[in-house]
């Protein structure tokens, strides 16, 4: 894989967003200039764009393993796909007033569900254990005729932990319940073959797989009852009105094709870099641990909780060294609590605030990984020297008792 350096610095925040692949950029550029037509138009200007969209739809179909290309609906982003899927299921089945999801979903699903609760829907939030795993028995018991839709993420954006969505979709099918998965983190990193599954709907986001921001896909299995979110035009067969974002759709198609080609590399070489990074840090830094389920997660993601220090401070020092990562601390999000994912796994506050997510892509190199392994120990040491929980080379005795501040 081309070891292209991303401008300056080391980018390990690929679960947040990815660099647009240079090949993708060059593929999309003509659609801003000479290929500016509206694909709905009859004339030659529109016709060429229409053909390009058709090709992109095929490319997305191939990556997802969908049976028909008409099962691909282009949207503006993963969030739109999630909202469309869930609201469609509710609209199409007005007698069903329940939703099943998990406590660790992305806000795109969680915030919508919390809003729907205010409108009178009953939402069941499946809990996770300390490794971020679901209890399938609990899930199985909740499936009933009252449930309009199950929405479960394929891979968690923070810990990378995978949920058994294929198995869960099968259980939903048996119970006659629609199944949606937010797969924005999984697509392109894991082989997916939707025609062999019982998944009814799936969300994909372009910018997570080296396509630009502002483009997504909702996979909608043929025959699944559907109600559009946006009405107003015949685009996407009337299922998502609005003039197509042609350049970005073309880009996403190219990115899907490239992801398909890079799948083996993701599974082997990216994973090898991730494993080296993780093992290197764990060897050199004391009092830190991997969160989530290390044996069942995305090949590119590693989430390490550094005890007794806070994540935003770690990120600022990493950033100074040119290293980009993200954290589950409260401060990085502007909220008052650490990441809901870390809390759901019952990670103590002193570690949850210090969780750092390092997410790789095929554009990273082993050389970069070694530099990060070298950079991390002094950063952690520097912050621990400031920490009231730390003294010299280790935590103070009984840290939670030695420093128990009053709430301010």
């Amino acid at each position, binding site marked *: 894989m081309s070891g292209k350096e991303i401008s300056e610095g080391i980018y390990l925040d690929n679960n947040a967003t990815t660099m647009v692949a240079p090949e993708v950029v060059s593929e999309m550029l003509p659609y801003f200039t000479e290929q500016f037509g509206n694909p709905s138009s009859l004339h030659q200007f529109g016709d060429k764009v229409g053909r390009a969209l058709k090709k992109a739809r095929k490319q997305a179909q191939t990556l997802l393993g969908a049976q028909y290309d008409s099962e691909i609906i282009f949207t503006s982003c993963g969030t739109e796909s999630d909202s469309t899927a869930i609201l469609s299921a509710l609209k199409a089945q007005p007698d069903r007033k329940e939703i099943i999801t998990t406590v660790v979903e992305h806000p795109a699903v969680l915030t919508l569900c919390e809003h729907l609760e205010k409108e009178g829907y009953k939402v069941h939030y499946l809990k996770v254990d300390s490794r971020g795993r679901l209890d399938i028995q609990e899930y199985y018991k909740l499936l009933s005729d009252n449930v309009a839709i199950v929405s479960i993420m394929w891979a968690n954006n923070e810990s990378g932990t995978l949920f058994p969505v294929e198995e869960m979709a099968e259980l939903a099918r048996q119970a006659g319940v629609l199944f949606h998965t937010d797969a924005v983190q999984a697509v392109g990193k894991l082989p997916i073959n939707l025609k062999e599954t019982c998944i009814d709907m799936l969300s994909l986001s372009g910018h997570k797989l080296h396509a630009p921001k502002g483009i997504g896909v909702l996979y909608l299995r043929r025959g699944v009852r559907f109600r559009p979110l946006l009405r107003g035009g015949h685009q996407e067969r009337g299922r998502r009105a609005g003039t197509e974002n042609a350049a970005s759709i073309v880009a996403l198609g190219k990115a899907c094709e490239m992801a398909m080609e890079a799948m083996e590399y993701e599974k082997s070489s990216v994973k090898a870099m991730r494993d080296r990074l993780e093992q290197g840090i764990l060897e050199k830094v004391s009092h830190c641990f991997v969160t989530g389920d290390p044996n069942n997660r995305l090949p590119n993601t590693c989430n390490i909780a550094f005890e007794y220090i806070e994540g935003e*401070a770690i990120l600022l020092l990493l950033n100074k060294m040119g290293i980009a990562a993200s954290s589950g601390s409260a*401060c990085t999000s502007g909220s*008052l*609590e650490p990441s809901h994912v870390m809390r759901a796994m019952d990670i103590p506050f*002193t570690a949850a605030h210090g969780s750092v997510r390092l997410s790789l892509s095929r554009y990273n190199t082993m050389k970069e990984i070694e530099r990060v392994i070298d950079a991390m120990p002094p950063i952690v040491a520097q912050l621990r020297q*400031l920490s009231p*929980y730390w003294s010299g080379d280790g935590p103070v005795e009984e840290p939670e008792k030695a420093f128990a501040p009053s709430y*301010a």
Partner: protein
Amino acid sequence: MWDYSEKVQEHFFSPRNAGAVDNANAIGDVGSLSCGDALRLTLKVDPDSEVILDAGFQTFGCGSAIASSSALTEIIKGMKIDDALSVSNQDIADYLDGLPPEKMHCSVMGREALQAAVANYRGEEWKDDHEEGALICKCFAIDEVMIEETVRANGLRTVEEVTNYTKAGGGCSACHEGIEEILTRILAEKGEAFDPNAVAGEIKKPKSGLTNLQRMKRIEELLGEIRPNLQRDHGDVELVEVDGKYIYVKMIGACAGCQMAATTLGGIQQHLAEGLGEFIQVLPAEELARRAAMEA
């Protein structure tokens, strides 16, 4: 990424007075682990003069928490403890050339650590019932708990009233949905429904009982309190006329023609209303000319 000032970054990357002070005789532990910010402040106070000879901090927290701790220790070193107690969280934020609204609580934590340390020095117990909720209004850094308490205490029922009492919602207005939700919830406790079309009631506060001259002086004083904030943004305000409940001001410098001028006037009005303890309206000086022309 947060919009941290150079000063915040500088105090984070090279914190002053990090670590515990040896032989400290005042220790303040404050913060909340769930929020991810906690601070131990250690002071060495001279028992005779009550001067803070040395100050050190240990902080578990984000960049601005560490910077606020560092700033606090720099500000108070060499101060008498009574003087140090008058250091406000705004002083800490100002020392750092400002903090983002979401991060103002870091400066609050600094001030409270100081109070706790002084209480510890004096053998008293420091208690704080301060509670913080989710940030609702980002323009004025007003959180949920503050809004809830104000709504309950004053029986508020409209977004406009909430803005009048707390400033929340007085800026970009993006948080109005959040404020409506709080109102809906609290009104429901009383078995009432939130009515988006309800008209805001007047703020009922006693008249100030000042003579005209005293009142004028008080207004000047109150404007003086706000002035540093405006001057920081290279603007200023000038009192033009006081006509009963109408107070006319002229915005000068960067404040003149600023897009946020209406918001700034709202903030000035709030401050004057609170300081005078009466319902007043702050209007731009141009309004005075317009009204005079209408009467002529």
